[in-house]
């Protein structure tokens, strides 16, 4: 029994025939969480938000390296765009200061706009690339911008599951 594998509560394990996941709905209802991989931050360029593009070994059998690297590189580009210090950010900063930062009550900051784009991108990637492979990418903002959490799911074969019981919290053997 590996002590590092936990099941998130409230997941129902149903008897399930082995088949390929097609979308997020199925992932949600018919799979069990096997493991989580955390992609750490890359601080080599300072404190700007960047994630390491090193391919984790746990994902080797699940997804192609290029797809994974593409996702992380696109995310890094989005964050670089949000944190870019240039003409637009100066203008925004000076204007905000002149209005005692009250302008942020009506206007969305550039960072928030980019965060929305990131959320949309991650959902799209989940639907198209990751869910069909039994993986789920969590938006880094939900983890304090520290890590990109990738949850690895495994579909349970019909032989190995109990019928209709829900587990609250516990550990499972792989």
């Amino acid at each position: 029994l590996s002590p590092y594998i936990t099941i998130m509560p409230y997941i129902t394990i149903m008897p399930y025939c082995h088949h390929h996941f097609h979308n997020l709905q199925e992932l949600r209802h018919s799979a069990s969480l096997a493991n989580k991989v955390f992609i750490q931050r890359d601080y080599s360029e300072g404190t700007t938000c960047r994630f390491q593009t090193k391919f984790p070994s746990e994902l080797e059998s699940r997804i192609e390296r290029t797809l994974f690297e593409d996702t992380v590189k696109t995310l890094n580009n989005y964050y670089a765009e949000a944190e870019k210090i240039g003409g637009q950010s100066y203008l925004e900063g000076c204007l905000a200061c002149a209005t005692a930062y009250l302008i942020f009550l009506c206007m969305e900051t550039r960072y928030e706009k980019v965060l929305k784009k990131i959320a949309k991108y991650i959902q799209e990637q989940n639907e198209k690339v990751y869910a069909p492979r039994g993986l789920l990418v969590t938006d880094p903002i939900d983890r304090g911008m520290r890590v990109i959490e990738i949850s690895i799911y495994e579909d349970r074969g019909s032989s190995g599951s109990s019928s209709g019981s829900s587990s609250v919290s516990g550990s499972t053997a792989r």
Partner: protein
Amino acid sequence: MSLGQGPRSRRSSRGRIPHVRLGNRRHRRSGELDCIGLCTNLQHRRAETPRLHKTNKKNSWHARRRARTMSAVMVTRKVRKWEKLPGKNTFCCDGRVMMARQKGVFYLTLFLIVGTCSLFFAFECPYLAVHLSPAIPFFAVLLFLFVIAMLLRTSFSDPGVLPRALPEEATFIEMEIEAANGNVPAGQRPPPRIRNVQINNQIVKLKYCYTCKIFRPPRASHCSICDNCVDRFDHHCPWVGNCVGKRNYRYFYMFTLSLSLLTIYIFTFNIVHVVMRSVDGGFLNTLKETPGTYPFLFFFFKVLVCFFTLWSVVGLTGFHTYLISLNQTTNEDIKGSWSGKNRVQNPYSHKNFMKNCCEVLCGPTYPSVLDRRGMTQEDLTVSSASAAPSSSSSSNAAPQTTKTTAPLIPNEHTPDDARPSIAASAENSDSSKEGFPPKRSSPARVTSPRVALIKCI
């Protein structure tokens, strides 16, 4: 049997119908109660509350341990995430306002600023507006409003708190640490948990925070007063009642700068006023005038406050201008991280005064990663004494984030999926940790609403 008591609970003995408290008065708006599987047997017991008031922490925890009775109540509540945040912050306005616990000095700051300025507006401005120019009180008002806005913005906003690692992440990091350390012979202390990172040809050490279970990003530090790791931690300012970090440093700087200007302004026009009156009617007469026209006491108070404020706030503004020009934080300056010995230089500085200023003051406005006002589920299944810890741990382990657009488990499904049978919960109680420390079972901040638990026979 004694029961855990909060400050407003009442004792009731067996047989009396209990007063079922459905939520703290302050938080009724945020918590909704869904009672599922309520047992409606006749004998009810006074409800035990899982809320641990600071002074009664031990009593209520022991009381719950003693009360190992079965109850078939499972209550699901939707709460805002700020109610479940660890750390020693206080939250107001349903999570919109975030401050440190000790706010006394902040109230003093407010009182001094508002008090001095209102005296100025009451006594000096009418004279100056008439004898010199109405622009003087006008600019004074603008400056005053700016100062208050910056103060409130600094005090009430999230300084850049880094949320603590969730259990899976903490375990993952532990695994990495153990893999990196290799086999430590028994009896030897394991090496300190440090990661080395090269930034701009400089080796920076990232320390591991044992409270938050993360490797702190560069420039982050753990504030012991607020019990949080704060990104780009500058210092904890009691005058402002909050930490100063990445997100509110520019507001803090604008506050000190504008306060300096306001102090100089008021001080100058105090003097000008006295001089003008003296020219009109002699200096000593001016000071002796009866209250109502020109109170001497108020003048003295204002001059005193302005004098001390001038030296302290102007000095502070100067110090922070120096720090900004070098792109350093107060924390780094105090520790001497980039003092230049051993050829250690600041890797974050652009070596250009304007560039550093622009980055710190006009850089991007970072969002808060805390998500204080998101909703999360709190499931309080009570089957035995250890059920309260297991419920809070379950709510910690399954954060129902509202930001992900494709949530893994939608909130509507959880009650059905999570409803355990009494037998299952009795089994779980054996496996769950017995000696669970009471501190874990409820956050240090005692704002979680109480939930009634009814015991059935």
